[in-house]
């Protein structure tokens, strides 16, 4: 049984409300943190090794330490609740069932950063969640944990919820800030970084929901204790939202010491592949991270078991590995078509491109068209090479990472499933009637020649 730090109390009835949450140890971290200095709180988070849970995995304590503190200029903490990466629905779960955990984390983090006005920017489609959060905020305020002079420490803090209106790009921190300012979600050129010039040109830190919730157990048990959970630089626990062809889709908290195989097949987690089918492929960290065929997913190219943590998932780089990303874990069974799936993802990125940078604006639409043509059995083998060429020219050539996010899934699909793409061209009629199937994707990995003595 994996240790739970965030979802430990999620099953308790009424935990959504202040009284029950408080009775179960809620808001202790605020009481503890407000007796420390803000710098000491930042230090605890640094010691914990917590890495941003939104997808990039940047060390949170370090991000906090970058915040500029010019005299007389207010600073802001903004919670990124614009969860929109296909496959990811963990923040929604946290906010819906444990709103006070997020509010508690926000109060402690606001104190550490000196933010007297903190915002939660939530995707517009989660339209019922602001009511839940606003109720939690009102309850926290009524009990002296928000508002003026919190716990008689002289620290003031207000939290406001702002709804987005349907734009994946607003999950990118500078686009989010633009949107918070009432503008189109066009990412800004960095530098200046938000920590220096963010919302309304004030120093701003933008953190993911899960990251900010994790601050609560870090303060409660201490940064050093938190760092002992997990492996290497993958400290603490991570929420994984599992979906696709598995028996038990849902949100799971793991301590990053289990293997991918265990996660997919154990009854404690995903419960295996649905309908007795076989595993074909998986996108383990949200749609933008590379898809891996079953064999490379379960074992690294070196033949080691692949584990559910940052280092192991990225072992082998993009050639044979993938990324932890946001923890949006999408599982595909033998009946799924990689070409069609890649097409829907390309369509998603074309739809979500803000249009600022030509490689992304033009490239995403071009890739979508080519992939649709291939999927419909009207493509040419040269289209596959063209796709490769386009994705390589988007990657790294845009202001924000949406370009990379659009390029990587296409690149990985061609890298590992090229035979399936070619089959759509060479067996065009058959490709309309049935799927390519499992092929050799689940076969044991060939032993590298050098090692085959």
């Amino acid at each position: 049984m994996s240790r739970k730090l965030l979802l430990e109390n999620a099953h308790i009835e009424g935990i959504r409300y202040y009284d029950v949450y408080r009775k179960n140890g809620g808001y202790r971290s605020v009481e503890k943190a407000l007796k420390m200095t803000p710098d000491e709180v930042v230090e605890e988070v640094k010691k914990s090794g917590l890495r941003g849970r939104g997808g990039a995995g940047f060390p949170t304590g370090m991000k906090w330490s970058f915040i500029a503190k010019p005299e007389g200029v207010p600073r802001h903490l903004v919670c990124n609740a614009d969860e929109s990466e296909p496959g990811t629905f963990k923040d929604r779960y946290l906010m819906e069932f444990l709103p006070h955990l997020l509010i508690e984390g926000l109060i402690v983090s606001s104190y550490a950063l000196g933010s007297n006005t903190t915002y939660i920017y939530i995707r517009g489609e989660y339209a019922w969640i602001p009511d839940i959060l606003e109720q939690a905020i009102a309850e926290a305020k009524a009990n002296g944990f928000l508002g003026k002079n919190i716990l008689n420490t002289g620290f003031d803090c207000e939290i406001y919820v702002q709804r987005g209106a349907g734009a994946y790009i607003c999950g990118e921190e500078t686009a989010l800030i633009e949107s918070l300012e009432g503008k189109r979600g066009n990412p800004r050129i960095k530098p200046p970084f938000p920590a220096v010039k963010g919302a309304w040109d004030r120093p701003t830190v933008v953190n993911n929901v899960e990251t900010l919730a994790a601050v609560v157990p870090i303060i409660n048990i201490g940064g050093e204790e938190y760092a002992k959970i997990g492996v290497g630089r993958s400290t603490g626990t991570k929420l994984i939202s599992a979906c696709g062809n598995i028996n038990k889709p849902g949100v799971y908290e793991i301590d990053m010491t289990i293997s991918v195989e265990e996660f997919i097949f154990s009854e404690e987690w995903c419960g295996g592949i649905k309908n007795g089918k076989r595993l074909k492929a998986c996108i383990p960290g949200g749609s933008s991270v590379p898809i891996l065929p079953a064999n490379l997913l379960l074992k690294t190219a070196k033949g080691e078991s692949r584990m559910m943590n940052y280092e192991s998932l990225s072992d082998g780089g993009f050639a044979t590995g993938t990324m932890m990303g946001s923890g949006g874990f999408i599982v595909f069974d033998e009946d799924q078509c990689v070409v069609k799936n890649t097409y829907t993802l390309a369509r998603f990125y074309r739809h979500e491109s803000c249009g600022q940078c030509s490689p992304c604006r033009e490239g995403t639409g071009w890739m979508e068209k080519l992939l649709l043509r291939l999927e419909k059995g009207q493509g040419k083998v040269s289209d596959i090479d063209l796709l490769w060429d386009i994705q390589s020219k988007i990657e790294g050539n845009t202001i924000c990472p949406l370009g990379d996010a659009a390029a990587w899934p296409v690149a990985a699909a061609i890298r590992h499933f090229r035979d399936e793409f070619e089959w759509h061209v060479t067996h065009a009629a058959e490709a309309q009637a049935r799927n390519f199937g499992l092929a050799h994707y689940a076969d044991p990995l060939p032993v590298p020649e050098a090692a085959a003595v």
Partner: protein
Amino acid sequence: MIQFSEEKLNKVSEIIARYPEGKQKSALLPVLHLAQDVFGWLSTETMDYVASLLKIEPIEVYEVATFYTMYNLKPVGKYVFEVCQTGPCMIQGSDDIIAYIEEKLSIKPGETTADGLFTLKAAECLGACGYAPMMQMGKFYKEHLTKEKVDAIIAECRNVENAN
């Protein structure tokens, strides 16, 4: 003439107060949501009214309203079905759900039924991948969709209409 009620105007003031002084433009997204809730969609007249409330240029409202997918720039049906069609929903059969709604209501994505009751839209990832296939209907999600569930939802909407 487009005009918020006293209550909604108070709400607008409350929203503006969340942001630093002089930065009332920041209230644009929430106020547009409010306007859409009240008037059903965002006409040029409505957007101009929002611009006047926030003391910004109308173009600043248009450019935002056209950027975000949730703002309706033309009238929509009373019930809007936004069916997610991205990867995780696609592999769970969202294409079939969209096709079934098309057939059942005789409309294509982007269209509204003649009686003005239903609009069908194909949406990109709504963050409910574990509960696929799914759609957004107004403020809430309808998850684990099947043809039977779609039938029940449509019947329920019609019942509400007939009762009114």
